[in-house]
């Protein structure tokens, strides 16, 4: 059963003080108490894991389960209680998790992703044409950071981009820490109804897209997927496909603008781009708190015993700022040349769309700074509206001028 939680345990989420850095408490915990208890917003408790090696252990060892239906699985925002009753496959363990993941992997191989380059480049160029046709200032989230991944995942899945305002607003509610359980339930209900209608359309008029393919090959009775399972899988892909990358584009742009020496290095040497993307992924680690688990058996981490049934939060940003692995982790160093960060997670649940995300980020940053060389923030960086307390870190808006 759950272990006792000292009444003075810190409340989760821990507070950030610098907009680009993880909460400073992570450094103290990693050094002094690498496996520590926290109180969760719903009154539950969990172990907070801050060392790189421990985070990788949690995410790759079968001693820790990703099964969101297990009693005591950590719930970080109100809506998670509902979604975890019938979770998408990313909150399942093998072999169920592998069964679903394998239906999708061929769409996300390096070769398939590379073939998407011209389409992504065209979308990025068009969005920048539109942005430059306006007079500054503009909100870069609305004009660029959100539409880029949204267009890409819509095309891949076969979701009409014309509906973007609808599903983007509901997706935002689904990952926000300030949504109530009621708001979450309403948003999820609307998204399900929308996806259900889309599945019907793909049954009647299949297109050349992933959703049509899944409907034709995997949906019962021809395949093994129930309609509800297919629906949740597609909603998860739609959500994961734009919320994450959008936050990385916007926050990554802000971080580069706030580190002019690094941006100058990137402009001088475009070959640096792949390494720059890896370093921004590490430095920002926007999915910091997404990787929650539950101990499947009695185990231990860094000498701290963890009982079966205890919730665990493997903090990705804490791991990616572990000075034992990344020297001077607080320094944004585009020449660091690291790819062993855990910004995409680790273990069998590591991000399915990571190579698509890398490509989108490369194209987006490269085109943005080439087309708008005078781009700058329109408000001071510490006054930007940051997304505190949600599942993904980022900015709600990014006012820029040029």
């Amino acid at each position: 059963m759950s272990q006792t939680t000292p009444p003075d345990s810190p409340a989760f989420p821990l507070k950030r003080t610098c907009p680009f850095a993880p909460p400073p408490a992570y450094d103290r915990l990693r050094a002094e108490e690498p496996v520590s208890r926290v109180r969760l917003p719903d009154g539950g408790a969990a172990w907070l894991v801050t060392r790189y090696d421990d985070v990788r252990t949690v995410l790759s060892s079968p001693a820790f389960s990703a099964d969101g239906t297990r009693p005591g699985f950590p719930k970080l925002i109100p809506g998670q209680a509902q979604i975890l009753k019938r979770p998408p496959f990313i909150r399942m363990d093998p072999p169920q998790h592998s069964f679903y993941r394998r239906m999708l992997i061929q769409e996300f191989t390096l070769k398939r992703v590379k073939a998407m380059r011209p389409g992504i480049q065209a979308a990025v160029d068009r969005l920048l044409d539109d942005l430059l046709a306006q007079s500054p200032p503009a909100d870069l989230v609305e004009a660029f950071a959100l539409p880029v991944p949204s267009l890409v995942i819509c095309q891949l899945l076969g979701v009409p981009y014309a509906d973007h305002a609808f599903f983007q607003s509901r997706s935002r509610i689904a990952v926000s820490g300030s949504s109530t359980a009621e708001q979450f339930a309403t948003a999820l209900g609307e998204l399900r109804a929308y996806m259900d209608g889309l599945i019907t359309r793909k049954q009647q008029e299949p297109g050349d897209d992933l959703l049509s393919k899944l409907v034709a090959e995997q949906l019962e009775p021809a395949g093994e997927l129930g309609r509800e399972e297919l629906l949740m899988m597609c909603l998860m892909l739609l959500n994961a496909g734009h919320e994450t990358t959008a936050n990385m584009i916007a926050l990554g742009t802000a971080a580069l603008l706030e580190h002019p020496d690094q941006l100058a290095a990137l402009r001088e040497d475009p070959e640096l781009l792949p390494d720059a993307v890896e370093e921004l992924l590490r430095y920002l680690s926007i999915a910091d708190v997404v990787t929650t688990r539950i101990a499947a058996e009695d185990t231990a981490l860094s000498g701290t015993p963890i009982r079966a049934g205890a919730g665990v939060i493997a903090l990705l940003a804490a791991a990616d700022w572990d000075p034992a692995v990344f020297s001077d982790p607080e320094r944004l160093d585009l020449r660091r040349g690291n790819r062993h960060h855990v910004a995409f997670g680790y273990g069998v649940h590591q991000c399915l769309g990571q190579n698509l995300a890398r490509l989108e980020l490369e194209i987006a940053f490269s085109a943005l700074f080439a087309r708008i060389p005078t781009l700058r923030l329109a408000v001071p960086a510490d006054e930007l509206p940051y997304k505190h307390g949600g599942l993904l870190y980022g900015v709600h808006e990014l006012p820029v001028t040029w």
Partner: protein
Amino acid sequence: MRITADTDVCISAGMCALTAPQVFDQGDEDGLVRVLLPEPPEELREAAAQAVRLCPSGALGIR
């Protein structure tokens, strides 16, 4: 150096093909790891070893 790959364990993250594209590929149909050069020449060994270390599923090994 001899590279081993367990396709039952592979999750198609693609880290190997990204890191050492001359040594690793992904199957077109299943996305699973294909070892192109099980005994990579000297100049590719460092990249191959890094790819093995980066594999998130533990599907790759060096014998």
